C-alpha cells in the first residue's frame, strides 16, 4: 500500500520536493473511520502508554497495523523536563514498543508529571530555568540510551505561567532541543493557547521556537474557561475534544513557509468525536495550510 499517496507535495526554491505528511492519532473509537479512509491518512500516531503492558498478541496486531501505514509512537508519562531523573521503567517500556513496532519516530513531552513521589496525573510546565534545561537534557540522553534513539520533544499547554522562570518558553525549548541534539514536535494549539493566555501574539511566539528543528506537528482544539472568582477574563484550555480553530491552520502555514524540512502533521482528537468526515475535512485543511505555506515560502526569502 502506498500510504503517502495523499501527502502534500511541494517544491521548494531549489526544486527539491518537500513531501509533507498528514495523519491522525490512533484512537479505538476512530478505528472504523481510519480503516475506511486509510488512503487519506499518511501516518498514525499511537499513544505508547496505552500499550506499555500489551501482551505479545496485541503487539503483533499493532505490528500488522504498522505494516499497512507508517506509525509514530507518542509517550505521555516520562516527565523528561523534570529536574529529577525521569522513570527508567517507562523508558524501558518505550524501548520494548520501539523494538516491536519500528515506528518512524517516538516522542515525549517537555513536562514534569511527578516530583518527590507526588504524581500530578498530567503534564505540567516546570519552572523554565537553566538548571531545568540541564536536567531535561540529562533525562533525554538517558532516554536515548535506553530506547536507542532520541525522542522528538513536544511543547505543552499550560494554564499557569510557571513561577521562577528565567527563560521564555521558546528560548527554553530551543535550549533543550539544541543541547540534546534532537527534533521538535511542535504542538501548534498548545503554542496558540499559551500565547493567548499570557498576552502574546501567537506568530511572535512561533518565531521564538527553533522552526528548523520541527519534525512533527500536532493540531487540536480547545475551549475557553472562565477564570475563578469574579474575573470577566477567560483562558483557553487545550482539550483535544474540539475542532482545530482557523488561527492554528494559519500558524501551520507560517511554519511551512519558514521550515525547509518535511513536516508530519498529526490531528489529535481524544473525545466528543464528530462524524469522521469532519476529521477528514480537518486533515484536508491541514494539507491546504501546508501547501499554502510551501507555495508562498519564496516570498519570505524574496523579502529578506
Amino acid at each position: 500500500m502506498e500510504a503517502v499517496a495523499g501527502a502534500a507535495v511541494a517544491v521548494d526554491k531549489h526544486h527539491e520536493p518537500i513531501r509533507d505528511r498528514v495523519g491522525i492519532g490512533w484512537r479505538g473509537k476512530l478505528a472504523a473511520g481510519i480503516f475506511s479512509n486509510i488512503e487519506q491518512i499518511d501516518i498514525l500516531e499511537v499513544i505508547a502508554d496505552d500499550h506499555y503492558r500489551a501482551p505479545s498478541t496485541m503487539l503483533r496486531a499493532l505490528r500488522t497495523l504498522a505494516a499497512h501505514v507508517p506509525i509514530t509512537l507518542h509517550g505521555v508519562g516520562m516527565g523528561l523536563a523534570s529536574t529529577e531523573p525521569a522513570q527508567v521503567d517507562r523508558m524501558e517500556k518505550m524501548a520494548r514498543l520501539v523494538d516491536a513496532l519500528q515506528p518512524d519516530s517516538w516522542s515525549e513531552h517537555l513536562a514534569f508529571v511527578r516530583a518527590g513521589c507526588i504524581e500530578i496525573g498530567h503534564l505540567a510546565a516546570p519552572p523554565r530555568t537553566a538548571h531545568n534545561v540541564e536536567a531535561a537534557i540529562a533525562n533525554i540522553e538517558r532516554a536515548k540510551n535506553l530506547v536507542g534513539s532520541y525522542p522528538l520533544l513536544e511543547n505543552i499547554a499550560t494554564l499557569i505561567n510557571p513561577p521562577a522562570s528565567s527563560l521564555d518558553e521558546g528560548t527554553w525549548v530551543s535550549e533543550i532541543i539544541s543541547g540534546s541534539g534532537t527534533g521538535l514536535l511542535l504542538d501548534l494549539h498548545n503554542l496558540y493557547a499559551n500565547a493567548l493566555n499570557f498576552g502574546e501574539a501567537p506568530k511572535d511566539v512561533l518565531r521564538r521556537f527553533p522552526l528548523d528543528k520541527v519534525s512533527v506537528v500536532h493540531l487540536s482544539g480547545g475551549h475557553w474557561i472562565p477564570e475563578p472568582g469574579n474575573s470577566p477574563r477567560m483562558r483557553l484550555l487545550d482539550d483535544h475534544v474540539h475542532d482545530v480553530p482557523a488561527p492554528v491552520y494559519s500558524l501551520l502555514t507560517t511554519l511551512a513557509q519558514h521550515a525547509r524540512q518535511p513536516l508530519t502533521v498529526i490531528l489529535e482528537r481524544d473525545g466528543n468525536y464528530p462524524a469522521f468526515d469532519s476529521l477528514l475535512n480537518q486533515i484536508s485543511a491541514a494539507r491546504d495550510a501546508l501547501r499554502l505555506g510551501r507555495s508562498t515560502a519564496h516570498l519570505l526569502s524574496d523579502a529578506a
Partner: protein
Amino acid sequence: MKASALEILLARLYTDETALKQFLANPEEYAAQADLDDADIAAVKHMDLTGLQMAAASYAAKRKQHWQPRLPIYQPLINWLKTLWCL
C-alpha cells in the same frame, strides 16, 4: 539531580486541595515552610495564583477522567484484522 523544591511544591499544590487552600490563604508563609531558596520564595510570592487554581482544577479533572473505565482500545484493531484475514 534531585527534584527541585519548587517542582515538589507545585506538584503538591496541583494534587492536594487542602494544601492549595492553605497556600492561597498565605503564599509567602506557606513557601517559607517548603524548603525553597530565597529566589524561589520571591518568585512564589508573585506567582500567577489564578493560573495555579485553574491548573489544579484541570489536573483534578484529568485524574478523575483517568479513573473511569478505559476504552477497549484493542477491540477495533482486532475486528479490522479479522476482516483483513477473513476470520
